[in-house]
């Protein structure tokens, strides 16, 4: 077991970060599965991170309480802004949520007394254990998996294809969109809270546009067809900078190039069950 201890000593942060990124990718996957491109999940992550951190740092709250608050706070915010913004569709929604993300970042920047402003919060207790991340990921995967097999999951798919037809099937479209949006926000908040207590320092720049793009890349790269895709994408996107450690600027360029190439040539991402099926069929002949 010694090699494992050594491995863990060096790489535990990386492994846990992969887990947290997987949560984030799943949160965007959830909204995408209902046809929503909500670019606000990075902001929700930030809300969760700050809420949980403030509770543990300033009020000595126990970790589970902080985590619960880290889930609840962004969920509540999502419920509040979801009403007016989810009426918008497609690109309008993407833009509105992008704008909202900026608003949150600026608010964090300016609420200095609470959030430390541009300097961020330093010295967050490192409470996140490996099993926290595993548990969170497993529970989230379980919930999303069961959700997909229920009428709610079917409703999401129907809404994604044709919201009008879905409404005439008796599906309450707005309520379902709100569910996807708010649940996605909660998952992102959980990821943020866990991440904050792992890296012991957070700042407003971590939850802006760049983070949002990172999360989106993970999901798109990995594949939006199922639950495996986002996890795979998180794995690759988190590991890639480590592998390309010597090529700093190059790796950001790679990120960008990957996005464009995937969108152009592998639109459903890497993990595409339908593509695998057709490979199988061709192989049989």
């Amino acid at each position, binding site marked *: 077991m010694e090699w494992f201890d050594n491995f863990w000593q060096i790489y535990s942060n990386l492994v846990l970060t992969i887990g947290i990124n997987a949560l984030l990718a799943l949160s965007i996957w959830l909204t995408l599965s209902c046809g929503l491109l909500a670019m606000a999940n990075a902001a929700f992550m930030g809300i969760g991170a700050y809420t949980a951190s403030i509770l543990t740092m300033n009020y000595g709250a126990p970790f589970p309480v902080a985590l619960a608050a880290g889930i609840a706070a962004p969920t509540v915010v999502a419920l509040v802004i979801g009403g007016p913004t989810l009426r918008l569709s497609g690109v309008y929604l993407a833009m509105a949520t992008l704008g909202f993300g900026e608003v949150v970042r600026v608010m964090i920047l300016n609420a200095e007394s609470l959030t430390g402003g541009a300097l961020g919060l330093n010295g967050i207790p490192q409470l996140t254990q490996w099993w926290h991340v595993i548990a969170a990921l497993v529970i989230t995967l379980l919930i999303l998996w*069961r959700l997909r097999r229920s009428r709610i999951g079917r409703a999401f798919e129907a809404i994604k*294809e044709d919201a009008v*037809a*879905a*409404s*005439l*099937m*008796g599906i*309450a*479209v707005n309520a379902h969109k709100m569910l996807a949006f708010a649940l996605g926000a909660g998952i992102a908040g959980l990821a943020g809270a866990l991440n904050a207590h792992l890296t012991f320092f957070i700042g407003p720049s971590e939850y802006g546009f760049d983070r949002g793009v990172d999360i989106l890349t993970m999901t798109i790269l990995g594949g939006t067809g199922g639950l495996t895709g986002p996890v795979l994408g998180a794995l690759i996107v988190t590991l890639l900078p480590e592998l390309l450690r010597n090529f700093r600027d190059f790796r950001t360029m790679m990120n960008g190039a990957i996005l464009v190439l995937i969108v152009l040539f592998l639109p459903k991402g890497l993990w595409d069950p339908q593509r695998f099926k057709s490979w199988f069929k061709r192989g049989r002949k």
Partner: protein
Amino acid sequence: MLKLSKVSKRFGGLSVLQDVSFEVPEGKVFGLIGPNGAGKTTVFNLITGLLAPSGGAIEFGGRSLIGVKPHQITRLGLGRTFQNIRIFKEMTLIENVVVGMHAHLDYGVPGWLFSLPGFRAQESQARDRAHELLGWVGLDAKAFDTADNLSYGDQRKLELARALATKPKLLLLDEPVAGMNSGEKVALMDVITKIAKRGFTVFMIEHDMRFVMGLCERIAVLNFGKIIAEGTPDEIKNNPDVIEAYLGRDDDDVVAA
């Protein structure tokens, strides 16, 4: 069962429907016909809540439909198909039909989360019912195909099965046989007759005269946004206003004298 009284609809300065009144009796097959652009699909959109009327009343079973959201209207018992086919292309046929049962599945969060017996029973019943409905329209053999691969005529039949899944009291069919060849039309006529015999009220919009005359027990005629006639097929056939509305147009099927 469904009653429109003096319904009108304006889009900006354009008046699409004026003073439209008719009644769809329960248990019968009712047809709304009229030349292209007369406003027929708009009538359906008003009934199903996708548009709000500029004036007039729409009542279903004595209850006003105005201001009611589309998904609630479906839950009240109106099922609908679309003129330009809106099936869920990336789902299989059976999934399409099961989506239609959404409103009638009532398991809660513990049910689907923990795969409780109640959940599994309802899901299983839903699938059985979906197979049955696909059988009614003759698509059962293709239940696991992706909807995108279907022929045009089969897609229309799928929409019909899906609309039936919503357990409607009134079925609104928007051009159910458009784009079908005559063999398919005859087959569908048969299917709809059987459906009507099971107690569903059917309200259809169609162009194909033979189809309409053969199936519908009452017909209303819409021209330039106004109802110009309402009655039995024979009455409509011989109505001079109706004949005039169709003469001189490039319609394939002109009312036979």
